[in-house]
C-alpha cells in the first residue's frame, strides 16, 4: 500500500488513458477480437485487489464477499488468458499449428 495523492492519481489516470488509446489505435481490424480479449485479460489485475481485500476480511460477511471477489477475479484472469492465447495461436505461422484442426 502506497499513498497516492489525489493529483498524482489524476496524472496516472490521464497518462494511462492516453497510453491505452495510442496502443490500440494501431491495431489492424483482424486483431480486434483477440485485442478485446487481451485487454479483458489485463483488467484481471483486479485479482490483486481481491486478494488484498480478502486478506483483511474480519467478519463472516466480509469473508463471503471477499471469497466471491477472489473467485470472480481469478475467473476473469484465467479465462481471459486462455481465450486470448487460443485465438492468437491461430495467427502464428503455419508450421506451428499444423497438427491442430
Amino acid at each position, binding site marked *: 500500500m502506497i499513498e497516492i495523492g489525489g493529483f498524482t492519481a489524476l496524472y496516472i489516470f490521464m497518462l494511462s488513458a*492516453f*497510453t491505452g488509446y495510442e496502443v490500440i489505435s494501431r491495431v489492424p481490424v483482424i486483431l480486434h477480437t483477440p485485442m*478485446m480479449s487481451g485487454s479483458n485479460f489485463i483488467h484481471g*489485475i*483486479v485479482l490483486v485487489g481481491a486478494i488484498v*481485500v480478502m486478506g483483511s476480511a474480519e467478519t463472516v460477511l466480509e469473508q463471503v464477499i471477499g471469497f*466471491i471477489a477472489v473467485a470472480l477475479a481469478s475467473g476473469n484472469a484465467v479465462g481471459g488468458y486462455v481465450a486470448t492465447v487460443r485465438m492468437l495461436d491461430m495467427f502464428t505461422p503455419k508450421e506451428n499449428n499444423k497438427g491442430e484442426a
Partner: protein
Amino acid sequence: MDIFIQVVYFIAAILFILGLKKMSSPVTATGGIVWAGIGMVAASLVAFFEPGVFDNSTNLVLIIVAIAIGSGIAYATAKRVQMTDMPQMIAIYNGMGGGAAAAIAAVELVKMAGGHHAIGGTAQVLAVLGAFIGAVSFSGSAIAFAKLQGLMNKTIRLPMHMMINLGLFVLTIIAGMIIGFSDSVSIQLVLVFFIMALVFGVLFTTPIGGADMPVVISLFNAFTGLAVAFEGYVLGNAAMIIAGTVVGSAGTLLTQLMAKAMNRPISNILFASFGSDGDAAAEEDIVGSMKEVQGRDAAIMMAYAEKVVIIPGYGMAVAQAQHKVSELTKLLEARGVTVKFAIHPVAGRMPGHMNVLLAEAGIDYDKILDLDEINPEFPTVDVALVIGANDVVNPVARTNPDSPIYGMPILDADKAKNCIVIKRGRGTGFSGVENHLFYADNTSMLYGDAQKAVGELINGIKELQ
C-alpha cells in the same frame, strides 16, 4: 518487503502495456499475451505478501480455494468453448472482472458499515462509483452472454423502459452519493445500492438486440477497466490504476471503432432499437426477382472463374462452415483460381470475428482483405460468393438516403461480374432492410445452411475433376 512489492507491481504495469502493444501486430501477438501473463502471475503472487494477507490463516486458505475454483472453472470453459462462441465467453469473463471490482468495494463498504472508520474523501466516492460501474458491467455482461448463447432470444422491453431505466439510474446515483459522502453508512443502504445497480445493468442491456451485442460487450469491457482503476485508487495500488485505465480507454476506442463501422452513433445502439426507425423508412421499388441456383451450377461458375472473392458473414459462423470454406478454397486454388476473402469490419459478432474463424480453418491472413483493400477490385472479380452475410453487401447503403443503413460502408459485391449468395431463407438481415443485391440480374441465390451449401459446392467442383 514493501519496496519489493511495489517494484513487482511497477514491472507488471510495464509488462501489461508492452504486452498490449505487441498484441497489435499478428507477428508478435502471441508473445504479447505471454508478457502480460507473466506480469499477471508476478503481481498476483506478491499480492500475498501485502500486509495482513499472511496474518489470518483462514483467509489465506479461503483465498487459495477461491482461486482454485474460479480459475478451474474458467480454464475448463475457455479450453473447451468453440471459436464461434468466443464472443459470449469474453463477455462472461469480463463480467466476472466487473463483479470482482464491485465485490472489492462491497467489502470496503461493509467494513465501514461495521464500525470501521470511513474510507474518506475522493477514495470513498471512487469506491462507490467503481462499485456501480462494476456491478452494471457484471449483470449486463451476464445478459449479453445469455443473449449470444441463445438462452434469451427476445429483446425484452418493458412499457416505458427508458423512463424506468432513467429513474433507476437516478435512484442508484442518489443512494451512491449518500454512501459516498457520509462518515458512516447502514448495511441496508449498501445492500439496496448494490441491488439497484445490478438491476440497472440488466434493464440497460435487455432492450439491445443480439446483433449490437459486440459493441455492448466492448463497452462493458471498458467499464470493467474503469471500475478496476477506481478500486485500485481505493486500495492504493498503482498497477490496478494503470492497467484498469489503459483498458478503460482502449475499450472506449474499440467501442467507437465498432459503432463507426456500423455507421451508428453509440447512443443510437444503446438507447434505441434498430428496427423501429427502419420500418418507417421509404422502401425503394425492387426491380427483378430472386433467382435460385443449384449447388452444382454454382460450383461450375466458380471452377471456371479466374478470380473469386468470398464474403463470409454471421451465417458462416453460425453454421461453423469455416473448415468447409477452407476446403473449397484449396480445391479452387488447385484449379488455378485466385481466391481472396473480403471481410467487412462488422461481419460476425465482433470486429475480427471472421478473421479468427478463417485463421482457425488454416487460411493465410494475407489472403484476407478488408473493405478498403478489396472494394476497388470487385469489377475484375468473376464470382463474389456471399456466405451468410446480408446488410454488409446491401447496395441500398450507397443509393437510398432514406434507408436506415444509408451511409454504412459496404462491400461492393454487386459490382462483381457474378454474385452467388448462400442464405438460409428469404428473410431480411438484422436491420430488417430488403437487400437489393439479391434481386440483381447477376446474382444467384443458393439456399441452405452454409455448411451444407458449401459442401454442395465442394462436391460440384470435385465432380469436374
